[in-house]
């Protein structure tokens, strides 16, 4: 560490310095003592060679340019981010402007502030009345558009079917999905239409439903009876037929069994 040199200053010198006068005595040069090593030898001061100053102006210029380029790029990025943020902010403000405008419209800035309970009640009543009328107007407009769209949608059907669908729609599917009456009407009408068609399809008699499971034994026979005409009583032969069968050498029972085979489908119900 370098040694500190204490310089003593007298009061006169301080006064003179304050008054702008020259000091009476010049302070002596600060003497620096040489450093001594452990053996007592004086260490010669290290003389550092100062490098010869050669400035590469071209390199300096390029470095400066690069530095400026980086700074410019950073600034541009920052500006771009800022601009985007501002745009988002502006959009958000614009989107909320309608509602705020509506809220602002509810009040008149020039109206005096009610200072009494009566005035406050009157102001509230007025506000409520305004809101109610606005709501009524919106409902009327919505209903008008809703009914008009329903009327248009029924052009594919005759009046009876259209009425049926509309009745079903008002009964089960009269739902307000949004503030768009045309869209809501279309959605609800189609829902009712689909429900009716689904029911009709399910109600429609399947002509093959009776053929499910066990085959109908009475196919081709009389309806509404479970009796199988093929398993009716054995054929009774008259006298001549019985005599003929006997003459051929057959037994009557054998002949009856021979006639008990399946009757052709095209003959069932005819003979």
């Amino acid at each position, binding site marked *: 560490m370098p040694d500190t040199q204490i310089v003593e200053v007298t009061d006169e010198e301080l006064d003179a310095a304050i008054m702008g006068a020259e000091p009476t005595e010049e302070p002596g040069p600060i003497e620096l003592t040489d450093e001594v090593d452990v053996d007592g030898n004086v260490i010669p001061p290290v003389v550092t060679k100062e490098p010869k100053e050669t400035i590469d102006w071209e390199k300096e210029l390029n470095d400066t340019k690069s530095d400026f380029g980086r700074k410019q790029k950073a600034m541009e990025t920052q500006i771009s981010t800022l601009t985007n943020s501002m745009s988002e902010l502006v959009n958000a403000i614009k989107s909320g402007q309608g509602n705020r405008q509506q809220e602002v419209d509810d009040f008149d800035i020039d109206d005096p502030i009610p200072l009494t309970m009566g005035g406050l009640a009157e102001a509230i009543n007025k506000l409520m009345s305004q809101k109610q009328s606005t709501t009524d107007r919106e409902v009327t407009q919505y209903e008008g558009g809703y009914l008009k769209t329903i009327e248009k949608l029924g052009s594919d059907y005759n009046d009876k079917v259209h009425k049926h669908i509309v009745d079903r729609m008002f009964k089960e599917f009269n739902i307000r999905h949004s503030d768009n009456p045309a869209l809501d009407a279309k959605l609800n009408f189609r829902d009712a239409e689909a429900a009716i068609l689904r029911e009709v399809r399910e109600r429609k008699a399947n002509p093959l439903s009776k053929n499910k499971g066990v085959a109908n034994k009475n196919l081709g026979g009389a309806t509404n009876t479970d009796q199988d005409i093929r398993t009716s009583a054995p*054929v009774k*032969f*008259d*006298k*001549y*037929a*019985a*005599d*003929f*069968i006997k*003459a*051929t*050498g*057959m037994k009557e029972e*054998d*002949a009856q*069994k*021979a*006639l*008990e*085979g*399946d*009757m*052709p489908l095209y*003959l069932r119900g*005819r*003979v």
Partner: protein
Amino acid sequence: MESERKEITAADLAAHSRRHGRKATSQLLEILGRRRPHYELVTSPGGQLMFSSLLVRMDELVEKIVGNKATEEERVEYKVSVDFLNHNAEIITKYEKHSNKLKGVE
């Protein structure tokens, strides 16, 4: 040959019933039963002998009629013989037709 088979079997009845129905088969059996005595009589040796005698007699009558020597009674006899022959021939033909139908030979 199937047509040469004489008697009808239960298999014939079953086959006919499957094709035409039991009622048609039983009706056919009734018709054959009604005609069978006549058919058997005509086709019996006695019937054959009777018809042979009739045919001989008819040949004589034909010769007289062609030679214009037949009396009126002989002409009537010939006419009756022809009708009798045709009637019996028709019975035999129809019987065999129904019989073949039942046998499935048509």
